[in-house]
């Protein structure tokens, strides 16, 4: 993020050549890191797409400084630095929301998994009980309805 600090302290609209190089290096390093995380199975591909897009955005901003000015102009922001920070903030907000969505999905999956396990044990218990005293409480049509359910 040193590029951002430099750009901010310069307090001018145009990015210097040095900031652009630093930003480009950071962006490439970032994308390499993502690749490495995927390769070593610490990050799943389906969760990496959004990070690649972020890395590409960084690279594009470094390669074409006019792009940032163009976006700032579109947003109606006079200061490109403000535009840059706003975009980053929105991006992070989007990522955080994305995580909440993923988390909710996984929470639902975990709940269902726990329920399935609890029911499996209850069913086992019922079988044992009916084996013990002969009073079968449960019908064995359960497997059919299970397939319909999902």
């Amino acid at each position: 993020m040193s590029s951002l600090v430099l750009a901010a302290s310069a307090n001018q609209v145009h990015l210097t050549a040095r900031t652009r190089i630093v930003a480009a290096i950071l962006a490439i390093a970032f994308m390499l890191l993502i690749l490495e995380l995927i390769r070593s199975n610490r990050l799943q591909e389906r969760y990496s797409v959004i990070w690649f897009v972020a890395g590409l955005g960084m690279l594009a901003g470094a390669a074409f400084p006019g792009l940032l000015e163009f976006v700032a102009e579109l947003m109606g922001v006079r200061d490109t630095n403000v535009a840059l920070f706003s975009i980053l903030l929105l991006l992070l907000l989007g990522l955080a929301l994305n995580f909440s969505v993923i988390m909710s999905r996984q929470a639902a999956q975990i709940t269902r998994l726990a329920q399935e396990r609890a029911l499996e044990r209850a069913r086992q218990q019922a079988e044992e009980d009916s084996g013990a005293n002969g009073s079968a409480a449960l019908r064995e049509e359960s497997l059919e309805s299970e397939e319909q359910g999902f």
Partner: protein
Amino acid sequence: MRTLVFIPAWNEQASISGVIADVRKALPDADILVVDDGSTDATTATARESGVLVATLPFNQGLGAALQTGYLFALREGYDYCAHLDADGQHPATEVARLLEVIAADRADLVIGSRYSDPSAVTGRDDYKPTFSRRIGTSVFRFFLTLATRQRFTDTTSGMRAANRRVMSLFSENYSPDFAEIESLQLAVRQGLRVEEVPVRMLERTGGSSFLTPVRSAFFIFKGIVVLLVGQFRPRHAEADR
């Protein structure tokens, strides 16, 4: 006709045997399932000793997930009717039997036992005395749920209910883990199911303690309103198997 009565229980070892005995007495033909929502006490062991089925969730996941487990079991095991009541001894099983009668007569798909809709008129003295925060929550939920469903509900958070297979298949797939009682009513009404309240008599708790402190109540109420609001924008599905 096979009936399942399930009892969601979280750390209710003190009262669970009494509740089971009560259900056995009032509903001798019904199968009983205790859904232990990850209790850290001897709820599962105590329930097993009573000789009922026990589904033990590996960790605590909230009332909604526990209730859904019961509906899922009832659906898959082919029960015709199911009912559930609280494990803390507030709900007399004879009242659950009355709810089941309404379901068996096919006068409704889902029946809620309400402690507020003038119980004295039907069953004599009302033994239930709500706390202050409980009263506020109740009236807020009552207002918003009535607004959302255009149907009058008095006891929106009642944990005493009876249902048929239509409700089982709906709730086993769609049941909010956070806001079980209220959202499920809204959902059922929106799906075109017949939801009915029946006045019941309720008792003081015999064990455990209510989870509602004032701060939690306020949060609970706020969350409930948000949930109801969001629920109004959920798609209305065509009813599955009417």
